[in-house]
């Protein structure tokens, strides 16, 4: 009898102990995207974070890249926003304007904030209150990769810095020469294989328009009509249409990575910085990294990537901030990102990435960030801006009239802005 009582006491106290321990754990939800490598890396960071903070339980919500915004909208409507969320930088303005995010500065370690590069600060800043809402370890860029063997065969000039990038005429002359070269099936891979409805289109092709002297939207009046459908934009798209028509561009259905596919069927590649690691692994010394060509008076290159923010509804913003700080400082995570040719968004991370250091093979890509980077329009109408532009590009690449396609896109964007009363305070005199 006495024994039984003792046992039940022991059991119940043990149960209570585990229950108390379980109750003490604070859960934070982290919503993210990413390829399998990154997903695994996040998981390992969380394990280390939990080991260092035994009272915290990190729960991941994976949302695939292609439907990320849709999934986020669903979370908003179900009132189940995560504490921490990864977001694509151009969508930041929409999220902040809609009231989902909170300023991040007080929640992140100060040394990390001081460590941010200029473009990293820019991609996480909301233009209206100029406050920082998101931070990332990385930023991004697009460069022109070249196959050294082919470029030498046509006697192309190899620019050494962003300042002496190829001009429009030079670029087209080379494309034409390359198209006649033995072994070259397509002069350039612009990664159409990513599909016709991906952010890649606005991200990579938008700067070509900006370099040609126009933009997706007027960034003062916040109106697209008169800007996106201007002659400069129509000419730039017409130029790209010509490349496609001439068979100079790898077709969408041929897949991606034709630049470093077997036999190197594409001589050039307009590719993201993330292409480098794989390309270099197969092409070795035969790869040269060039700045994006100048299609008008000035050069332009994209920036912005997936960055980390804390939602306004988070019950534990301090822990959320602690997790983000932990992630960005985690040594093993950093070395994984560096191995994926991750583009530095922190100065200390740049120092750890020989790839991007002066003299490094991707130094030109890093140089672009300070010299020619143009962010995608930081406006709450961005979801419509990018969707309308993708539609126009698909239309034009398949033979549609550039002016007509862009006018229709500009109309769609302006209608959306009108529907939302101009997204105040955007567009108001400031």
């Amino acid at each position: 009898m006495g024994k039984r009582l003792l046992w039940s006491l022991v059991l119940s106290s043990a149960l209570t102990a585990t229950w108390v321990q379980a109750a003490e754990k604070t859960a934070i939800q982290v919503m993210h995207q990413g390829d399998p490598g990154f997903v695994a890396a996040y998981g390992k960071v969380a394990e280390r974070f939990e080991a260092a903070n035994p009272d915290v339980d990190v729960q991941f919500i994976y949302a695939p890249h292609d439907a990320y915004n849709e999934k986020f909208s669903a979370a908003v409507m179900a009132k189940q926003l995560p504490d921490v969320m990864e977001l694509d930088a151009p969508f930041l303005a929409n999220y902040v304007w809609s009231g989902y995010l909170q300023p991040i500065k007080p929640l992140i370690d100060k040394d990390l904030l001081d460590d941010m590069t200029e473009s990293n600060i820019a991609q996480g800043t909301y233009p209206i209150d100029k406050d920082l809402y998101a931070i990332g370890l990385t930023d991004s860029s697009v460069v022109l990769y070249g196959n050294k063997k082919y470029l030498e065969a046509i006697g192309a000039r190899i620019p050494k810095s962003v300042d002496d990038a190829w001009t429009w005429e030079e670029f087209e002359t080379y494309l034409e020469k390359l198209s006649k070269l033995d072994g070259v099936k397509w002069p350039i891979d612009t990664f159409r294989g990513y599909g016709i409805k991906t952010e890649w289109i606005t991200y990579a092709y938008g700067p070509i328009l900006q370099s040609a002297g126009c933009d997706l939207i007027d960034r003062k009046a916040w109106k697209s009509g008169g800007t996106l459908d201007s002659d400069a934009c129509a000419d730039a798209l017409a130029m790209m249409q010509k490349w496609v028509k001439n068979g100079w561009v790898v077709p969408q259905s041929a897949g991606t990575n034709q630049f470093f596919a077997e036999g190197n069927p594409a001589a050039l590649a307009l590719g993201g910085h993330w292409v480098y690691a794989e390309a270099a692994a197969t092409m070795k010394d035969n790869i040269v990294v060039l700045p994006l060509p100048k299609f008008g008076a000035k050069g332009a290159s994209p920036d912005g990537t997936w960055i980390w923010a804390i939602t306004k509804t988070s019950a534990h913003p301090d822990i959320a901030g602690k997790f983000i700080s932990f992630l960005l400082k985690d040594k093993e995570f950093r070395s994984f990102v560096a191995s994926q040719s991750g583009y530095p968004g922190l100065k200390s991370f740049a120092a750890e990435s020989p790839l991007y250091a002066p003299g490094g093979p991707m130094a030109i890509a890093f140089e672009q960030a300070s010299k020619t980077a143009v962010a995608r329009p930081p406006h709450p109408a961005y979801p419509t801006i990018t969707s309308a532009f993708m539609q126009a590009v698909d239309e034009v690449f398949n033979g549609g009239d550039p002016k007509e396609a862009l006018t229709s896109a500009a109309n769609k964007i302006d209608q959306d802005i009108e529907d939302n009363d101009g997204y105040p305070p955007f567009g108001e005199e400031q």
Partner: protein
Amino acid sequence: MVMQQSTSSTSVRKAPVRRHDKGRAMQEAAMLAPAVVLLTLFLILPFLLSFWTAMTNQPLVPRPTPVRFVWFNNFIRIFQDDLFWTALWNVSRFTFWIIPAQCGLAFATALLLHQKLPFRNLLRGMFFLPAITSMVVVCVIWGTLFQYPTGPFNQILGFLSGGAIQPIDWLGDPQWAMFSLVLLSAWQAYGFQMIVYLAGLQGIPDELYDAAKIDGANAFRRFWHVTMPGLRPTHVFVLVITTIQAFKLYTQVAILTQGGPKSSTETVVHYMVRAGFEEQKMGYASAVSVILFVIVLVIALIQRQLLRRFDV
């Protein structure tokens, strides 16, 4: 389904009018209630709501700006949008192609499998298999088959023609993309129509065939004068169901072409999803759904007319 329709509409004898006693009325109401509640909750109410939403500028997620009543502005914009008309034209084109392809295939296999073949049931199962395979899976597999320039379809065509047929960019060429979706869709879904046809064939009494044989009708005449008239209601049913399904074309587009190239595979439903979820314009998307509803309603009304004309 078909049998049910024919019996219920041929026997239009009026039931004798009976005095309603209260208990029976209560019983009827109780039995109807679950269906009425569910239909109201999940069908009628959402439809009324979407009609209401269609006349506002309701965004997908709550926003700081007020939701306004915009009357028929969304509808006017939709009718002014070339892309919508392209989408409507595309589904019409799709429907026009898929009906002969899918129904023809279904009819042919049903006739074949109605014969007394060995392993008949196994064959029926095999032919029905694609219809119960998820469209998503089918699309992923066919995406590989369609690959350009080295996919299996292109290789087979090249081999059969001795290299005379150049590889076709099935999904990347505006001329071919919709046709490719027709091929895929017809193959995936014909099993359903086949089952309906089989049921229809089994509903034709054997005595009619025996009588025709005694009258000296050959196989073709038996088919033309017994099978075809016997299948009239089935034909109408299959035709209408296929048309309505075709108008709702979405999955194949979302997975394989995203409406491209050059909007050649943009469909009404895809246009609606794009407006609602990508551009976050719920009001606008609702207006598209209302238009789609009207189109499908018109088709359903035509169905009633056809059924009446064929006296079934």
